[in-house]
């Protein structure tokens, strides 16, 4: 009996919004402090997926479909970003194996 009551407790939307804000913050911080292009790139993906959590949580809260369809589009955009990003990163690493963001400093002034 006790178990049924516990399962029926639904965390409020706020929980999810806070979770998503935390994930977004981790992604943004990671992007700023890490120097490996691949990790920086993963951080961008983390930020996009954090937003997806917000969209889904809000869509459930409002009971409308807008937020959920938005997630579909964001997923596809994230996949396209993966492909473009990895393509550029690989073409750089081929030329200079083990390059970090600090090595890419030919352009300045």
């Amino acid at each position, binding site marked *: 009996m006790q178990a049924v009551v516990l399962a029926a407790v639904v965390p409020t939307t706020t929980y999810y*919004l806070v979770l998503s804000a935390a994930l*977004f913050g981790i*992604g*943004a911080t990671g*992007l700023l402090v890490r120097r490996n*292009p691949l990790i*920086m*790139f993963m951080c*961008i993906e983390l*930020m*996009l997926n*954090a*937003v997806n959590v*917000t*969209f889904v949580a*809000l869509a459930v809260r*409002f009971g*409308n479909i*807008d*937020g959920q*369809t*938005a997630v579909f*589009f*964001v997923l596809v*955009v994230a996949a*396209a*970003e993966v492909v*473009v*990003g990895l*393509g*550029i*990163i690989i*073409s*750089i690493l081929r*030329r*200079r194996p083990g390059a970090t*963001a600090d090595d*890419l400093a*030919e*352009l*300045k*002034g």
Partner: protein
Amino acid sequence: MLAQDDFFLAPGIEWFHLGPVIALVSGALVLLVVGALTPRWPRGLYAYVTALTAAVAGGLAVFNWNDITDDGVSTLVGGALAFDTFAQMITITVCAATLLVALVTDDELRRAGKDGPEVYALFLIAATGAVVMGSANDLILLFLGLETLSLALYVLAASDRERPTSQEAGIKYFVLGGFASAFFLYGIALIYGGTQSTNIGEIIGSFQTSVLLDGKDTLVLAGIALLIVGLGFKVAAVPFHMWTPDVYQGAPTNVTAFMASVGKAGAFAAMLRVLVIALPFHRDDWRPAIWVLAVLSLVIGSVLAVVQTDVKRMLAYSSISHAGFILVGVEAAGHNAGELAPGDGMPSVLTYLLLYSVLTVGSFAVVSLVARNNGGDTSLDAFKGLAQRRPTIALALTVFLLAQAGVPLTSGFIAKWGVIQAAVEEESYAIAIIAMVAAVVAAFLYLRIMVSTWLETGAESTEREAVPFSTGVAVFSAAAFTLLIGVWPGWLLDAAESVTTYAK
């Protein structure tokens, strides 16, 4: 078994009104698929197909414009796209810039033996993204347009595989652009949280009803902040400008021209759609932020431009300062956003975008001619003695630089005068004065390039720059347009003045 009672109502697809977008996408697909299936096309055909596509799309936008002035504004595809003259103006700007860039690119690629359909297809796809950003009536569609534009630009920036600087520009642009896109998207999500919709019409409607949701203001305000960060990156406004000089310098010159024209037009169109059209009820909240961005961009862009030694970097900082001017217009549009008499802010921004796009493509076209002659060198020294070697090209460059400085009788004067007048009308005297001072400081930069071009002599051994036909046509027509608008601006100003936006 499906439920019989829920009936699916298909949204109308207004094929003709979608013409510009369909033309651009088909052009890109034809280039990619037919280009891949057939052997290398004869000289310059890729570029001419691209230019033709852009011209057709721009022409269709003019047809649409007439339809709108006759029948009024509406939406397309179930409310996803706005069908208004604002969208058509952005479309025409984007298509004009794409056309000129295609002509400039042609020779640059062929001479390097890298001719192929990919770069042109990417130009057209990016242009499609910018057009969608200008016509989106839904924030998610706006985001898709933004990403279509940005992803194509990342690849274009890194497209010169032989130069490490191009690759470096590509990865820098990609990382910071992805960062900005994520902020922009988070902003959309929070606006959705506050208003329960991503459709611009419904967002406006949610502010008009008196029903109060808990936390609506908090969510919308946080959303606006994130949207401004994301858009600030995309338009390259200070303090979100740090990628601009590196990317503009590292990318191939024709791509830089494309970024500075189409990229900027798309980003500012998105900014107007999101802030002025979708969020007029919060105009007093976002306007101060735009004010700060405008002032910082004007001051820092102009001052840092003067101390550069590389012409591409100079033009990058000058583009930041131009972004500041355009933001002055956005700020002016913010005073009366959503009112029946919205003021001159929006028309002045649209005029500025069109005129600046042509100017900047012309300037970068000349830079690419000079750079090619010097083995890719774009420092100020490479421009020495250009007037002796190629007086006509030097003259065209001078026209572009004078216009960027805002000298009367050029299109740049009309553009700058428009935004400053709009600011003065809204009694934003402080920002108008700062803009004028920044224009004077920036004029020094253009003067430096002109002095190098006309008064200093280059090394004896420097050969005359080769001026290929298509680039020559692009430079000449851009210069002619710059002077024509400077002398005879009435029709363009009237057209911009009559711009309508769909907002219900």
